[in-house]
């Protein structure tokens, strides 16, 4: 498998750019998709945000200095794109963040691309009620099984802080599921 460093170099060179971009998309499309999907919940929105993420990556690869790993840089772009998308959506609809989350969960019940049972729907409701940071950390740790060190690099937060956020998130989710 091609090293990250080589891939970045190839992405920056005109002759190898399109071929290596293809490699980049193939390597990261699924994990970035699921990361985005768990933030925006709806497939069509996730598809839009994912495409915009790759476009941003492509346009900004020249400026990528390699201070962080490529995957964490891409995850950061994906996270920002997804959160910006939600903010823009709530503004367009004239809804608060909480109201938008409620609507997203409501839509999930009729979503043909959500096959969750009752407990999975309750889990999504509980996740939606979490503060943004805890929500991100929970999804990345629980579903994507990223290491704390990886999440730390993506969200630029200390490992200790992340562990606390995850712990709190799990407690709140458990409490919410017990209640319902």
């Amino acid at each position, binding site marked *: 498998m091609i090293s990250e460093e080589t891939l970045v170099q190839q992405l920056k060179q005109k002759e190898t750019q399109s071929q290596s*971009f293809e490699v980049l*998309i193939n390597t990261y499309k699924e994990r970035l*998709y699921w990361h985005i999907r768990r933030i925006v919940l709806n497939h069509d929105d996730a598809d839009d945000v994912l495409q915009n993420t790759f476009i941003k990556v492509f346009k900004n690869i020249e400026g990528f200095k390699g201070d962080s790993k490529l995957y964490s840089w891409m995850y950061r772009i994906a996270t920002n794109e997804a959160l910006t998308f939600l903010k*823009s959506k709530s503004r367009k609809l004239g809804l608060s963040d909480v109201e938008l989350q409620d609507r997203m969960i409501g839509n999930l019940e009729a979503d043909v691309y959500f096959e969750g049972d009752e407990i999975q*729907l309750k889990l999504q409701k509980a996740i939606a009620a979490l503060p943004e940071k805890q929500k991100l950390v929970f999804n990345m740790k629980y579903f994507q099984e990223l290491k704390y060190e990886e999440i730390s690099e993506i969200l630029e937060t200390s490992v200790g802080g992340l562990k606390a956020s995850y712990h709190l998130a799990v407690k709140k989710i458990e409490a919410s599921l017990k209640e319902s």
Partner: protein
Amino acid sequence: MDKKYKKQDFKTPEGYFDSFTDKMKQKLSGEEIHLPVKDGFRVPENYFENLNEKIVQKIDEKDTKVIKLRRYMKFYYAAASVAAILVLVFGLRSNQDEFTFEDLANSDLETFLENNDIGLSSYEIAEVISVEELEINDILENQINDENIMEYLDDTVDDVDELNIEFDEYEQ
């Protein structure tokens, strides 16, 4: 039974302590929450297979759109400023107190842009307004040509270069 905890005054049902551990275990397991391992989301069939092509196509489209959009936005800002000034000057001179809808729209637009209170990205604006179909004179009461705009900017802006206007973009 541990003598330390032996109480003479109270009695427990027979076998209470023998069955206590099991009872407690049962209760705990009943209340334990098992979070689902999967989240229940799925994607349309062949979604990931067709994704590469869609992204590459979108990049090509965006490349074309961005050039048009930038040119359009430069016109838009310049024209909005000029329009507002013209409305003010001619509006006051002719003693017209009544504002038409078009006047209001222009002044609103100008304030909107000047305060940078758009809240929309360039792409979002482009989605709402069709760049291809919009002519700059559509939003102006008075017809203004490119030369007027450049003259106005020359007179009022200290350093026109700072606006990053590419003159060749106007020469079409």
